[in-house]
């Protein structure tokens, strides 16, 4: 699977394979845990590949929110970059970088949903409730991304002998 040709985070099949491995490792399966470590050793490019996915998604949301307004697009991109720089801090690990990207992407999606929900006049009948649900979901995902980043930072601070850098 992912180990033979290299893990592709954009592939649903590869993600499902890793998800199953992670689930077993988390459940205490020592063989699966060894598999997770081997996966990370053999796929150092995964962080960069996921960062690439994040960059594409980020651009897509910026274009979506800005429509054709170049000034709005530029402002949003700068806001995203500022937030990223603020959250990354000094010497961020690969995991922290992933999580910061997730915070930025989720914020952009939240911005879009806020914009969508603020235009009830263009909403079709029955669409308003769906928009509110999507806004709520985007808000929860953004909060979850922020919390996860804080949790990982907290674990890093507590850890004295981390087996792998967080």
């Amino acid at each position, binding site marked *: 699977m992912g180990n033979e040709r290299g893990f592709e*985070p954009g592939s649903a099949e590869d993600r499902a394979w890793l998800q199953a491995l992670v689930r077993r490792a988390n459940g205490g399966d020592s063989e699966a845990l060894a598999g997770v470590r081997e*996966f990370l050793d053999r796929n150092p490019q995964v962080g960069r590949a996921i960062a690439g996915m994040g960059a594409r998604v980020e651009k897509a949301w910026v274009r979506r929110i800005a429509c054709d307004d170049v000034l709005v697009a530029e402002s949003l991109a700068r806001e995203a970059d500022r937030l990223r720089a603020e959250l990354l801090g000094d010497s961020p690990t690969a995991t922290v970088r992933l999580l910061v990207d997730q915070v930025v992407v989720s914020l952009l999606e939240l911005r879009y949903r806020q914009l969508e929900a603020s235009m009830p006049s263009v909403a079709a009948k029955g669409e308003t409730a769906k928009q509110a649900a999507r806004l709520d979901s985007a808000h929860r995902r953004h909060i979850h991304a922020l919390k996860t980043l804080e949790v990982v930072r907290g*674990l890093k601070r507590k850890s004295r002998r981390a087996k792998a850098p967080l």
Partner: protein
Amino acid sequence: MGWVKKGGAAPVYVRTVRVEGRRVTEYYGRGALARWAEERDEKARQERQAAQEARKAERLALATIERLTRDHELASRLATDAALLAAGYHRHDRGEWRRRRGQ
């Protein structure tokens, strides 16, 4: 709406519209007025179709961004979970991440 033939006479252009909840047929005859009505209806039909196609394209574009966002979210989460597990942590029943005993 369209050209309607009755008996042996040449077709006439008709439109059916709703007036106060009732269906009413409008007759435009055969001449210039009929052709004008036909062109106007065709233009309106094309505009509705274009608007419908634009809305569909819009929905597809948004669905694509949403799918890519979910894919990125899942990939990030899996990579984070893998890093935490490799570092000796585990999470019980979606609770807090904790160090495994003996790690």
